[in-house]
């Protein structure tokens, strides 16, 4: 009896999980499907799910009209660059907060996190003016810096939680064994924190890849990443849903593939410390 109930319960839970999963995935699926329709079919009502004439013409037109490859390279440079730069700053910061905490370390951490609670548009004008003065508008360097800054609190927090799980005695042992600070971080701390650093890296590349507010507002043509490439298909003259969908699919495909291959690492990183 008990077994029967638990079996039914399991079936219901599985069904629910699939439903939630599909619900979350549906917009992406719909985007991909729409990208293979003609403009007329894309806005047809009722919409057809699979039974339409599949076409690659949107992709061809998008390729013709804009330089996908350049946007793609910009996206890679900005997301990877800002994440690596963030790690260089965050590793020592997280190290000091995890292993030599001061009285106010907790407050500093909370303060850093609080910057994420500010609506970005609140600082758009000052940042825009600063960028204009420094000549950073529409440059890759400018975007790398700004995306690094907005994701830095998350990078530091993630690394901090990782580092805190590393027993301090092991670092003390390294010190007793004759390791200076550099050797301690290089040979002992970093290898032990590699899984944590890897998932921090992956998550932040994804966050930076998908970031649209700053990339759209601070770029024009030269440094525009894939977000700007998508946005260029929503014009004031009207929406071309099929082409917009094709552009979106091309923009999200690389990061989706990367996420798929690294999902194990990502899930481990995000739940680290929650279960031991």
């Amino acid at each position: 009896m008990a077994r029967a109930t638990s079996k039914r319960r399991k079936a219901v839970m599985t069904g629910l999980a699939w439903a939630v999963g599909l619900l979350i995935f549906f917009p992406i699926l719909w985007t991909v499907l729409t990208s293979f329709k003609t403009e007329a079919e894309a806005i047809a009502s009722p919409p057809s799910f699979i039974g339409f004439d599949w076409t690659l013409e949107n992709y061809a037109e998008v390729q013709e009209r804009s330089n996908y490859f350049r946007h793609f390279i910009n996206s890679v440079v900005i997301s990877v660059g800002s994440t690596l730069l963030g790690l260089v700053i965050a590793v020592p910061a997280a190290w000091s907060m995890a292993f030599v905490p001061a009285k106010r370390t907790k407050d500093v951490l909370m303060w850093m996190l609080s910057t994420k609670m500010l609506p970005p548009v609140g600082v758009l004008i000052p940042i825009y003016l600063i960028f204009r003065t420094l000549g950073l508008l529409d440059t890759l360097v400018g975007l790398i810096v700004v995306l690094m800054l907005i994701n830095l609190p998350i990078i530091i927090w993630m690394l901090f939680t990782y580092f805190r799980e590393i027993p301090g005695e092991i670092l003390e042992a390294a010190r007793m064994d004759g390791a200076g600070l550099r050797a301690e971080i290089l040979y002992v701390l970093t290898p032990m924190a590699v899984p944590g650093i890897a998932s921090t890296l992956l998550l932040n590349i994804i966050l930076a890849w998908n970031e649209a507010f700053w990339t759209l507002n601070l770029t024009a043509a030269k440094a525009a990443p894939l977000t700007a490439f998508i946005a260029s298909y929503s014009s004031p003259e009207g929406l071309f849903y099929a082409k917009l969908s094709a552009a979106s699919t091309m923009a999200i495909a690389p990061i989706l593939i990367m996420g798929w291959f690294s999902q194990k690492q990502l899930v481990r990183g995000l739940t680290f410390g929650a279960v031991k």
Partner: protein
Amino acid sequence: MGKIVLDRVTKTFGHVEVIPPLDLGIDDGEFVVFVGPSGCGKSTLLRLIAGLEDVTSGEIRIDGEVATEIPPAERGLAMVFQSYALYPHMTVRKNIAFPLKMAGMSKAQIDEKVMNAARVLNLTDYLDRRPGQLSGGQRQRVAIGRAIVREPAAFLFDEPLSNLDAALRVNMRLEISELHNTLGTTMIYVTHDQVEAMTMADKIVVLNAGRVEQVGSPLDLYTAPNNLFVAGFIGSPRMNFIEGAEAEAHKAMTIGIRPEHLDVSQETGLWEGRVSVAEHLGSDTFLHVQTTGQGTLTARVDGEFAVRHGARVWLTPEADKIHRFDESGLAIRENGVAS
């Protein structure tokens, strides 16, 4: 060489004084044990010597050189931690080689030293395993191996055996003692276990609330404890303390008698009582006797001594083995002067 001198060393955490001014000298080649109850500051003292904590005031000298400002990496000391603190991502070989690599030795030299250490510690078959694949005792040996390869001026042990089971603990105790005999290097060993202290030490430092209560050889502390704390802490089962009229008869505030210095008779004696618990260890039997007037006293008798719960016995202390203590808990020596 490994002569360590602590000169008026103090340590405070915030407003809490963990170590009040403390002087201590450790000679080259000595096996010194810091022993005391939890929170007595013995680990802190060890960490001060290691350099993992900074002294608040005073001076630590290693082989005559002031070490107070020298970082732990450069003090030439090796430490074995309670948790072993092995590097989990490195093999046993790399763990043991790490201090040598840090010292910038050549690969050939490192290999030779690692092999030697592995042979001494029976680790040769495990060199390519990771710490996670080893038993507690093996991990402990790796930690010791990592300490011995660099030939330090002194070894620091921070409760190294407390994570091992009882049988293994006795084994490792012997191994560490043997290691000390072979290497002849200064060893400072922290423990809360007075049995470890008694069995291993050349010199025991009894600590209580950061203060040195007494320094001496194990037998010194056992036969002539300076005060009530040392008398009660050293020796197992612990010393019996008696106050009141019996103590006054010996011109003392408190008298102390060790369990093995109480004669037990089933016919006659000084103090009458009933056996509340008899612990038979085989070789010995510990009797916990509820006496009339002197409270519960513990006596140690031969393992063959046939007595059971509720039996009536008489206890008589050996007259020349009675320890006397004054009002402030200090021992009164033969000449009647408190030491």
